[in-house]
């Protein structure tokens, strides 16, 4: 009996919505767009943060930079010896890495030295983004200009796999002598230091010992690196907050329009329903289903479109914004991730307020005498 009644009211609601097809379609489109935008930002930032925490969990445990006048300074070898004396430190290494501007394509590359890669002088490995920017293939010659204006031809030994672009797109890996030749970094100097600590709980203590022994240094722990990616794409900051504000304001206008009153047609409809024997509770139920149908359709469509946008098209609409002035931009596909908590938040921020906003004015109209509502 109860189910039958609900079905009848839903049938009537849908036919009532169909009578105002144009208005309701426009409403659903705007509503879907708002949800799509909000969900796209949420999915993208959440997936990126998740991937960062997964991929960077093996980042160096502790990086030590040397600072001078607010800028990074090369670290002399004697600093490594000092750090090595600290109790709890198991290994210390000097890292060599730097940035290289390529005037041919206008892109910035990150050049690093890796002992594991075992490059012979003259050989390099490049990231997929670099290979794409320079239309280079394996075994091609890649010319780099050194600090003193000379040019050195390198041979591309390998191209890093394209599915690692998110971390390696702009990398050029070379041997230590080549690096020192390109940048003019004197022997015995490094870009920064990485170290391993025997007991992970002692990282903080080791970091403070380093600062007390070498006051011009700045230690960065792995926890800080991971926290950076938690905060840089926080929804409360940057452009994300601008998009969110715009979308939320648009939604408030839509909801306000609904809540501020009914059209004369809608009031007339309520009046007629009351006159033919509908009770106030039935009218409210009909309006509840009307709000639910519109908001649920928009919510589901918006969410699904956002899912396709972020995980199937690699957030194609955001790409121009993300690229900014970068010439070299990684091509990556984020691993899909849906967080029920986020979906629930979005649901309660969109569906519930809208549904409530449609019921309140209807309750006002439904409690007035049907005769006066129809005449108004």
């Amino acid at each position, binding site marked *: 009996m109860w189910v039958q009644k609900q079905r009848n009211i839903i049938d009537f609601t849908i036919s009532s919505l169909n009578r105002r097809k144009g208005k309701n379609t426009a409403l659903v489109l705007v509503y879907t767009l708002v949800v799509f935008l909000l969900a796209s930002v949420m999915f993208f930032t959440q997936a990126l943060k998740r*991937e960062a925490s*997964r*991929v*960077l969990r*093996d*980042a*160096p445990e502790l*990086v030590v*930079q040397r*600072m001078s006048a*607010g*800028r*990074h300074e090369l670290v002399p070898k004697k600093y490594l010896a000092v750090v090595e004396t600290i109790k709890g430190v198991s290994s210390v*290494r000097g890292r060599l890495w730097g*940035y290289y501007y390529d005037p041919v394509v206008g892109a*910035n590359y*990150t050049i*690093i030295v*890796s002992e*594991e890669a075992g490059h012979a002088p003259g050989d390099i490995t490049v990231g997929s983004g670099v290979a794409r920017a320079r239309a280079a293939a394996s075994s091609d010659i890649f010319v780099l200009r050194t600090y003193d204006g000379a040019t050195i031809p390198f041979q591309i030994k390998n191209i890093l796999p394209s*599915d*690692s*672009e*998110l*971390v*390696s*797109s702009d*990398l050029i*890996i070379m041997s230590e002598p080549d690096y020192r030749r390109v940048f003019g970094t004197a022997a015995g100097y490094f870009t*920064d230091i990485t170290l391993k600590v025997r007991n992970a709980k002692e990282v903080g203590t080791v970091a403070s010992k380093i600062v007390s022994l070498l006051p011009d240094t700045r230690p*960065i*722990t792995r*926890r*800080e690196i991971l*926290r*950076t*990616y938690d*905060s*840089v794409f*926080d929804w409360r*900051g*940057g452009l*994300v907050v601008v998009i969110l504000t715009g979308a939320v304001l648009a939604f408030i206008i839509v909801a306000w329009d609904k809540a501020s009153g009914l059209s004369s047609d809608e009031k007339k409809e309520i009046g007629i329903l009351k006159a033919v024997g509908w009770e106030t509770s039935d009218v409210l139920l009909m309006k509840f289903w009307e709000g639910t149908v519109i908001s649920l*359709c928009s919510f*589901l*469509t918006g*969410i*699904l479109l956002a*899912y396709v946008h972020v*995980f199937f098209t690699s957030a194609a609409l955001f790409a121009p*914004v*993300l690229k*900014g*002035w*970068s010439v070299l931009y*990684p091509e990556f596909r984020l*691993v*899909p*991730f*849906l967080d029920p908590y986020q979906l629930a938040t979005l649901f309660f921020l969109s569906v519930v307020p809208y549904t409530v906003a449609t019921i309140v004015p209807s309750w006002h109209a439904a409690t007035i005498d049907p005769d006066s509502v129809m005449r108004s």
Partner: protein
Amino acid sequence: MYVAAGSLVLCAAFFHAAYQGAARNAELETQAALVRDLELTDLCLFTEARYARHPSQADLHSAFQDHPLSMEHFPAGSLIQPQRMMFVPGAP
């Protein structure tokens, strides 16, 4: 009818996300191995400025990198937030 179909597709999206998460595990492992071997510290998302390429390694004066009154002008700067320690001294 539409709501029911949409809910079904949403459920399918959950399954797709779970399946892809497992299927692309190897891909993430490759990236993690690269990070470990090359001692990388950051994602390669923005290559336009050094502090946007390596946000975790950026010095605390990046916004004034050129001269004291030079304001942040790279588009990436409007997308990503400064690290927490810039606002809260001593915060990790």
